[in-house]
């Protein structure tokens, strides 16, 4: 690079630091991926060598991060139009679009190949499908086309526990499908509760959000509908081999609270919501954060009790 080329770069420095590349991998999303994949791996009935387990979780995280980088590459145009995303590495000018694409593709291939070598082909195939689903089906195709984009995007985020389970068992089972369904059904009420009390600028960017396309009342209805589906999945998961009394008590309490919260949100008008600064919507969003963490945490508790003859349904 010559001095002349430095002068023509878009940013003040024209050079990305390591942190900028790391931000490209969406670290916050990666933390959810790591946690749920780890639970999927640890609750499986087959033990895994700790180094193989650690490496597998890392490769799943890298695969998730790589799909985040490809998402930022494709969505760079709309990220420049929204306040929330203006500080991301590409819109802020720290990382070039081509660089993000190259990093995303390279890490995707590397993560899938390495997971296949470290664990098994099923886990690698699931990771490859997750990346494909998030980047092609969600980001490139459906995100800008349907207000159900959150539901579809949620599916991509729901795969990691299935991959973790596949690392240990080499297959798919009712337990791993229900763990997928738990995150899948949780995502819409979680995100739409947030959408009800934040003023996103998705409309400016041409992304159809349910609150804009179908209105806030329809969004409240959808939240309640998905909450019932979520409760059914959460209880069903408790009846499988990874559930048990501890999980079931936690699930019953949390789902009762979540249904109550969704019901309150469903019954309110926008005027009620404005009057108390969206108290019920904020409450439901906060509860949703604890909800997912505690459900997966309860599965871990059940698994950790099993060596002592406790945990599970005996």
């Amino acid at each position: 690079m010559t001095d002349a080329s430095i002068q023509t770069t878009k940013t003040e420095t024209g050079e990305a630091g390591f942190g900028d590349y790391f931000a490209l991998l969406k670290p916050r999303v990666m933390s959810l991926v790591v946690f749920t994949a780890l639970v999927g791996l640890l609750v499986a009935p087959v033990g895994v060598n700790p180094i193989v387990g650690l490496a597998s979780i890392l490769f799943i995280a890298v695969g998730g991060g790589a799909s985040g980088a490809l998402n930022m590459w494709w969505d760079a145009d709309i990220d420049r139009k929204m306040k929330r995303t203006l500080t991301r590495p590409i819109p802020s000018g720290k990382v070039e679009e081509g660089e993000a694409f190259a990093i995303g593709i390279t890490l995707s291939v590397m993560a899938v190949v390495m997971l296949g070598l470290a664990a098994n082909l099923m886990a690698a195939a699931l990771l490859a499908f997750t990346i494909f689903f998030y980047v092609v089906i969600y980001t490139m195709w459906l995100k800008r086309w349907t207000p159900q984009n959150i539901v579809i995007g949620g599916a991509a985020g729901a795969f990691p526990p299935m991959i973790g389970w596949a690392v240990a068992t080499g297959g798919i089972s009712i337990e791993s499908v229900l763990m997928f369904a738990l995150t899948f059904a949780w995502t819409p009420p979680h995100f739409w509760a947030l959408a009800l009390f934040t003023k996103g600028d998705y409309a400016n960017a041409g992304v159809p959000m349910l609150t804009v396309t179908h209105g806030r009342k329809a969004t409240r209805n959808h939240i309640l509908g998905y909450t019932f589906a979520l409760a059914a999945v959460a209880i069903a998961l408790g009846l499988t081999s990874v559930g048990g009394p501890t999980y079931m008590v936690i699930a019953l309490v949390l789902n009762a609270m979540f249904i109550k919260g969704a019901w309150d949100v469903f019954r309110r008008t926008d005027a009620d919501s404005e009057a108390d600064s969206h108290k019920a919507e904020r409450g439901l969003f906060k509860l949703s954060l604890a909800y997912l963490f505690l459900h997966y945490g309860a599965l871990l508790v059940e698994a950790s009790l099993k060596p002592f003859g406790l945990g599970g349904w005996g």
Partner: protein
Amino acid sequence: MVIKAEHEMHKRRFSRNIGLGLVLVGFVALVYGLTVAKVGELYQPEAASEASQ
């Protein structure tokens, strides 16, 4: 423009080099650990006895 010996750009480049270096060292260590774990699994007594049968 005042030419500084240490520009912000150099700091970013340095952080990138150090970060990438650490990632590569970590990756090598991980592959080494994986190799030891995988080879170790092949030579466990159970696996050895199964293989001999």
